């Protein structure tokens, strides 16, 4: 492989990105503009009722009356919460940090006592035994923070037997994540998905570029030179990886300026950029598949949305607000795993070597390599490189 050829073709592709206004807009400006507009206006979407996984650490189990078990049964009966019982807070927090559950609820040891005191003298708060349910929420899920507390509060109110939530209550819910110094903003929630989102539009650019070069005879012209298919494809992949890197950097600068300050170190940022780079391989692959099945650059633009939209809706910040079925479907798109890993790292505080992040990395790496390979093989089969 001659490096001179690879460098020349890579430089050519970079110049194209910078000089063609449409390409420049689609790759760099559109994702940013879209994210701003989207982040500001997006609400819940999706038909099915989502189910939230809540970890429960029940400190009240020793109490013989065990009202807490009845309260937990009442929560399960809502069909909205799926409860998972943990023996210790630490284990539950571990799963919360990796996104396996959306909340951890600590039932205090005085829960049954408090409940009994209320039942005995419902109209005399001075005789109540107060207790506090501690609730930790997934800071990586805007839906979890908005949906889970009211559900638990309403169930608790109904369980105690009150008609309105405003009446004084012996059992309080304290939301641990939301009483921290810094409250998680909407921007924080969507930022991991924004990194993924920006890169997805490479699919369209790759498809257009290959179809256009085929249409105007440039692909033929390159094939006439001694440039090998390996040199050509290497230059293309390198170009789009560089573009993905620039996109990620731009998104980072933008969200930083807007106030995104995750409590993570430089290794996590470096890891995030590596993830985005790996993810860009799948976008090149999808772009090549699109270019294979289309005859013109115009058709390539349209068909590319068949790959862009699922990745966008199921795998970025959009997916968190979709139905449970849609969220399940998201597990079949690479972008889901990139967003999930970034969410775990930036928002949940998971370590790079945590099982969830490593699993995400493995899925992203394998799937992206496979998609790129399929793209190259298909394109080479129907249109010589």
């Amino acid at each position, binding site marked *: 492989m*001659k490096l001179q050829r690879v460098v*020349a073709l890579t430089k050519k592709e970079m110049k*194209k990105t910078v*000089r063609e206004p449409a390409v420049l807009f689609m790759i760099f400006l559109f994702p940013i503009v879209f994210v701003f507009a989207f982040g500001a206006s997006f609400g819940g979407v999706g038909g099915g009722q989502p189910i939230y996984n809540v970890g429960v650490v029940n400190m009240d189990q020793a109490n013989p009356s065990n009202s807490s078990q009845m309260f937990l049964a009442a929560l399960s009966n809502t069909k909205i919460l799926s409860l998972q019982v943990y023996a210790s807070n630490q284990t539950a927090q571990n799963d919360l940090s990796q996104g396996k559950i959306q909340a951890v609820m600590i039932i205090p040891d005085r829960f049954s006592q408090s409940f009994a005191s209320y039942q005995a003298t419902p109209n005399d708060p001075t005789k109540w035994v107060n207790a506090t349910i501690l609730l930790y929420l997934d800071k990586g899920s805007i839906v979890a923070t908005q949906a889970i507390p009211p559900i638990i509060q309403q169930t608790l109110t109904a369980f105690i037997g009150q008609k309105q939530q405003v009446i004084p209550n012996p059992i309080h819910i304290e939301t641990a994540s939301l009483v921290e110094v810094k409250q998680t903003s909407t921007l924080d929630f969507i930022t991991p998905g924004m990194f993924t989102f920006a890169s997805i539009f490479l699919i369209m650019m790759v498809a257009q570029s290959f179809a256009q070069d085929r249409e105007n005879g440039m692909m033929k*012209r*390159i094939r*006439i030179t*001694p*440039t090998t298919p390996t040199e050509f494809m290497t230059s293309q992949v390198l170009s789009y990886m560089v573009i993905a890197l620039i996109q990620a950097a731009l998104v980072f600068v933008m969200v930083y300026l807007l106030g995104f300050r995750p409590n993570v170190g430089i290794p996590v940022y470096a890891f995030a950029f590596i993830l985005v780079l790996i993810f860009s391989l799948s976008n090149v692959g999808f772009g090549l598949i699109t270019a294979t099945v289309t005859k013109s650059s115009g058709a390539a633009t349209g068909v590319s949305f068949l790959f862009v939209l699922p990745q966008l809706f199921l795998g970025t910040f959009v997916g968190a607000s979709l139905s449970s079925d849609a969220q399940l479907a998201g597990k079949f798109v690479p972008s889901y795993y990139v967003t999930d890993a970034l969410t775990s790292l930036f928002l949940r505080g998971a370590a790079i070597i945590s099982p969830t992040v490593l699993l995400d990395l493995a899925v992203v790496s394998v799937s992206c390599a496979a998609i790129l390979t399929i793209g190259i093989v298909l394109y080479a089969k129907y249109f*010589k490189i």
Partner: protein
Amino acid sequence: MIGLEFQLNIIRQDNNTRPVKKNMGANVNESAIVIENLVKKFEDVTAVDGVSLQVARGELFGLLGPNGAGKTTTINILCGLTKPTSGSASVGGYDMQKEPEKGKELIGVCVQETAVYPYLTGAENVELFGNLYTMGKNALKTRCDMLLERMGLIEDAKRKAEKYSGGMKRRLSVILALIHDPQIAFLDEPTVALDPQSRRAVWDFIKELKEGGKTIVLTTHYMEEAEELCDRVGIIDHGRLIALGSPKDLILKNGVKNLEEVFIKLTGRKIREEI
């Protein structure tokens, strides 16, 4: 004449100094191009039907015929872009099916499409292709400037190619084919859609290449172009080689005034009726 000699000297001098490896195949005495019983079928259409011919080193050979006659398919096979259904094609002693990479080092091809990268400047287009032929930086710069000057594009070298007129793009396309100073040049309709002045400039340049010892295969459906430039021509129709010889010989042999009439006599129709 002084200017022309000066340009030729530059070309020859560059031939001696550029670092690109361009040794011909095993035997330097053999023909530059050898085609034997070449057949290419696209499903039920036979684009090339048993063509055999040889082009000598340093010869300017014209492949003539109407659109769809099989000229471009033949060129594509010679460039290693298309595999023949049967028969063989070798360039510079290299079989283009077995050793296309070696053959590609020797050839330069001006494709029929006016194919240039619109978002690159004229000079950047040329430099890109020079790099694809792994030319040295200095040699590339020298030859790039010389060719842009020669084809009248030096003033516009730093403008994006998308701003070029059709004729300028066509001339740039010719430069891209010849930047690496190939021993064998395939010029596929290099003057199509050019104004008379640009066409004349390209003709002059092709003549200079020939005088520089290059082997040139020119495909065209302009018969006057072939008469003006070519040592020998092959007339191809419906994929078959129907006549082969020097323009003068073919005209004499068929007792007509020009190549256009040779074609009419052999096929019963005008060459450009099907365009």
